């Protein structure tokens, strides 16, 4: 009996990443810009979509949504009230979405009717950051009630995000939140990160996020 050491150098999630690349290709072929919307449970992801999607519609940008939850159709039902194509995915236990789930979601959407696809990930500040889905843009929602140290406590999530939405600013006086500290922590992880303080409840600054998305879509079309 002998021992043999073999060099492998292979990515364990190569299959996930291959499917993510396929997803990206399909979305690009249909000229769809896609966003992976992440954040802890109750941070306000669905509430933001409820305010944002009507604004995008006014800008003639048709939306579609893939809703991810462990169980239940609550969020999918809320989004369907906005009269946009929506698919609810239940992971049945997985705490994050993976590329195969997005592939199935894409197969159940009328892609020719969509210009902007939102993937609302499972509420979790840890695992979703580890799994590529094949989207154009990562956005993390962190509400002020979760505290200003979130970027330092969950570095991976914030280091892979293009945008951070600081939600629930309507509660600033009640809760107290040091936005400068939060911003410092976030920028240390990703210097170019875009930070948008927002209130999904009142609608404050939702249009700033809509502006950002519209700019990204235009830039995408130029390239």
């Amino acid at each position: 009996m002998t021992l043999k050491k073999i060099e492998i150098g292979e990515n364990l999630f190569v299959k996930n990443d291959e499917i993510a690349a396929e997803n990206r290709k399909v979305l690009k072929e249909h000229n769809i810009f896609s966003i992976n919307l992440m954040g802890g449970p109750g941070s306000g992801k669905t509430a933001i979509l409820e305010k944002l999607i009507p604004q995008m519609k006014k800008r003639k940008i048709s939306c579609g949504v893939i809703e991810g939850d462990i169980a239940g159709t609550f969020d999918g039902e809320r989004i369907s009230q906005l009269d946009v194509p929506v698919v609810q995915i239940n992971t049945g236990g997985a705490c994050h979405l993976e590329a195969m789930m997005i592939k199935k979601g894409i197969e159940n959407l009328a892609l020719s009717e969509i210009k902007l696809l939102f993937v609302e990930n499972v509420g979790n500040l840890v695992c979703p950051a580890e799994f590529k889905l094949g989207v154009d843009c990562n956005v993390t929602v962190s509400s002020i009630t979760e505290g200003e140290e979130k970027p330092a406590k969950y570095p991976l999530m914030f280091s892979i995000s293009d945008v951070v939405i600081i939600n629930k600013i309507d509660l600033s006086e009640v809760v107290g939140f040091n936005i400068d500290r939060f911003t410092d922590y976030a920028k240390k992880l990703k210097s170019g990160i875009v930070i948008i303080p927002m209130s999904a409840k009142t609608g404050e600054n939702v249009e700033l996020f809509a502006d950002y998305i519209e700019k990204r879509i235009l830039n995408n079309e130029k390239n």
Partner: protein
Amino acid sequence: MHEMSVIENLVRLLKNVCEKEKATGVVSVQITIHPFSCLDESNLNFMFSCIAGDNPLFKGTKIRVLRNKNLQEPEYIVDNVELEIE
């Protein structure tokens, strides 16, 4: 929290390697991850032994997890495996 996904993919990879090399067991595996990735080495070993330990290939397999500051994106690279060959 996603040790299950890691273990499923690892078992598949190791089975392929063992078949190719005609190995009778996996002594050790080294995996490199992003410094911020959330994977606990002792948790992973424990769960691996629970899930895959019945397979004679994986009895006593030790998984080592290293963190690489140079990885730009979250990745789980299987660097090398040490095999028992009859």
